[in-house]
């Protein structure tokens, strides 16, 4: 196991393709994704429902249900080890220990029938070889770290005794129990109300800096990624449409889709304005149109866009965009006053 991969990145994903065989046809949920993540960095994956964000995260951990889904191609290197080439036993070893995941709905992510302490203990007993007392103490410690009040008394309770925010904290405690190198947070705050959302995000930030883990934050909420991430990847129809450092993505998007997403965020200071929405619906992944998948909904789509698949244009060293007119969009965004 290399301590350092060749370019010093913690995670390197190349040409990841995950397809699903359905009655409707072959659904290319993730079709050629590439990105990298450095140590201690946070990457945001943003997209509408059906863009392939969750499937990407499940593919990283090889949790795609095997029929009907299959990772047909790609390379996922965690510190140099290609996860897609490992045996089932090896990948099970990695899950929970080197990569951990927290899910969207804390109400259903915890086993309702098991005590919280038992669910936490299972992780360390499995991966760190703790015996019972050790695992129990570690569980209490983790609960305290994530801010559960009176952790020792609560630990022996059941999930239904906790509110949504607390359950999500428990999930975070479970995920970070073994100090993983990578934490994948799949819409961790979507099911929570806004004040709790802020608390949970702060918690993730703090724990990330305490443990030095890298984080992949998957969400459809641009506000969430703005404050949390170093880089952002925008996905649509299973493809990456744009990737850039966070500040630059917001200030100067290079892709009409990103631009449209940013416009869709309601502006509380604007008065008497009709809310902008991207016309149309996300495409049927089983029957993608020829050419750019976003062309049917794009405001500046031209005949070329419907005909040919766009190139992945490099705008700056770290800013790429999948568009025939990437450079123009980028330049125009610069000229316009920032939103």
């Amino acid at each position, binding site marked *: 196991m290399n301590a350092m991969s060749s370019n010093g990145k913690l995670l390197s994903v190349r040409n990841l393709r995950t397809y699903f065989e359905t009655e409707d046809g072959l659904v290319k949920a993730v079709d050629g994704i590439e990105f990298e993540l450095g140590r201690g960095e946070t990457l945001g994956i943003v997209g509408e429902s059906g863009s392939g964000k969750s499937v990407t995260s499940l593919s990283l951990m090889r949790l795609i249900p095997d029929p009907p889904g299959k990772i047909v191609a790609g390379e996922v290197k965690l510190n140099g080890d290609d996860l897609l080439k490992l045996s089932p036993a090896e990948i*099970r070893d990695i*899950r929970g220990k080197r990569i951990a995941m927290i*899910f969207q709905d804390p109400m259903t992510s915890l086993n309702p029938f*098991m005590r919280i302490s038992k669910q936490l203990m299972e992780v360390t007993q499995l991966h760190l070889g703790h015996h019972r007392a050790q695992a129990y103490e570690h569980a209490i410690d983790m609960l305290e770290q994530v801010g559960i009040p009176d952790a020792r008394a609560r630990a022996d309770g*059941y*999930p239904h005794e906790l509110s949504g925010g607390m359950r999500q904290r428990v999930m975070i405690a479970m995920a970070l129990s073994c100090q993983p190198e990578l934490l994948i947070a799949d819409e961790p705050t979507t099911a929570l109300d806004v004040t709790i959302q802020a608390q949970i995000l702060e918690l993730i930030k703090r724990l990330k800096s305490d443990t030095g883990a890298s984080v992949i934050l998957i969400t459809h909420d641009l506000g969430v990624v703005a404050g949390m991430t170093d880089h952002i990847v925008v996905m649509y129809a299973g493809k990456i449409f744009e990737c850039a450092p966070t500040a630059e993505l917001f200030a100067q998007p290079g892709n009409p889709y990103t631009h449209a997403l940013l416009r869709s965020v309601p502006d509380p200071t604007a008065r008497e304005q009709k809310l902008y929405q991207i016309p149309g619906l996300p495409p049927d992944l089983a029957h993608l149109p020829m050419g750019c998948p976003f062309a049917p909904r794009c405001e500046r789509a031209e005949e070329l866009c419907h005909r040919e698949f766009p190139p992945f244009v490099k705008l700056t060293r770290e800013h790429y965009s999948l568009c025939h007119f990437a450079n123009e969009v980028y330049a125009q965004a610069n000229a316009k006053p920032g939103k």
Partner: protein
Amino acid sequence: MTRVTEPFAVASGSVLHPVNDKTSKLAGHGKEPTEPALTPLGSPPEPPVSPHGDEAIHTGPEFAVGEGDVRSAEAGEYVAGSSLWKDAWRRLLRNKLAVFGMIVVILLVVASLAGPTIIKRVTGYSYDLIPKEETLNKSFPPFRAADGSFSWTHPMGTDNAGRDILARVLSGGQISLMVALIATLVSLVIGISYGATAGYLGGRLDDLMMRIVDVLYSLPYVIIVIVLLALLPAKTPTGQLAELFIALGAVSWLTMARIVRGQVMSLKNQEFVLAARATGVSTTKIIFRHLVPNTLGPVIVYATLTVPTVMLSEAFLSFLGLGVRPPRVSWGSLAADGAQNLAIYPWQLIFPGLTMALMLFSLNFLGDGLRDALDPQMRRE
């Protein structure tokens, strides 16, 4: 002999209703207040009115929130959470028929276990003792002595050989209960493993496994048991009993497998299963540690209803002479002996029969009560 019909629909997912309860009506600790001191844990204070009303709150697959305990949290006290089992117990106690069934079952079990020893010590009668003097008239028990006075020596009468029937009924109870419990246990072990594996793995393997169950279902179990017992006759009485356990268990696991499979299938798509896989838990552990305990509700109910079925099967077999054989007695063999003299000495059949009937319907009441207690969706409150 009819099989017990499935006590509840087992189309996958119909028993369990995994509902996303997004409204957290529970302890509102959103603001994380400084934790109040623990109150001494006694029974939680009863608020004057139920805030839940008739609404069933489902936060887990089959169970409702701990009623009566969480409400105190709003008053600022920390109350230990009520477990799902405690709630079920409380609901069970409200069901009078189930309580009656439970009491009767307990009484009969205690009587069967302790009875024979007590009777032997007090009166000297055991199930195989033939008293030497026969000075009692043989009329409907309790007998009258030769001089016309009432005698309680044989409250249930005697059989043809003069053995005390009460002692025989209680001894028979021991055997009947033991066979029923162990056979149920065998069917539980086989049924749960088989059903949970089929349900979790799904796909073609599941299809194959369930078709096997379907085929076995269609076979007349009496014949199978007879064949099993005939093919491998056991020499010792203990061996005979063991055979019975296994044979009866082997034919009664089928419905249990179906039930567990249904439960597991509706549970396996819940997010906590994915979360468990994401922490690296192996498939076996997921099935047996995460999923099976979640199925315990219906499993317990069905096990409680399997016991009387097996008991009846054993009685039937013993009646035919295939089950428990002399010198051991069971309720079925007693019934067989008594049936021969039904016209002359009816009590020889009536008492064992009544006792067994009492046990069977008490178990059924208990099973029904458990089902209502453990599956709130089916309550009609």
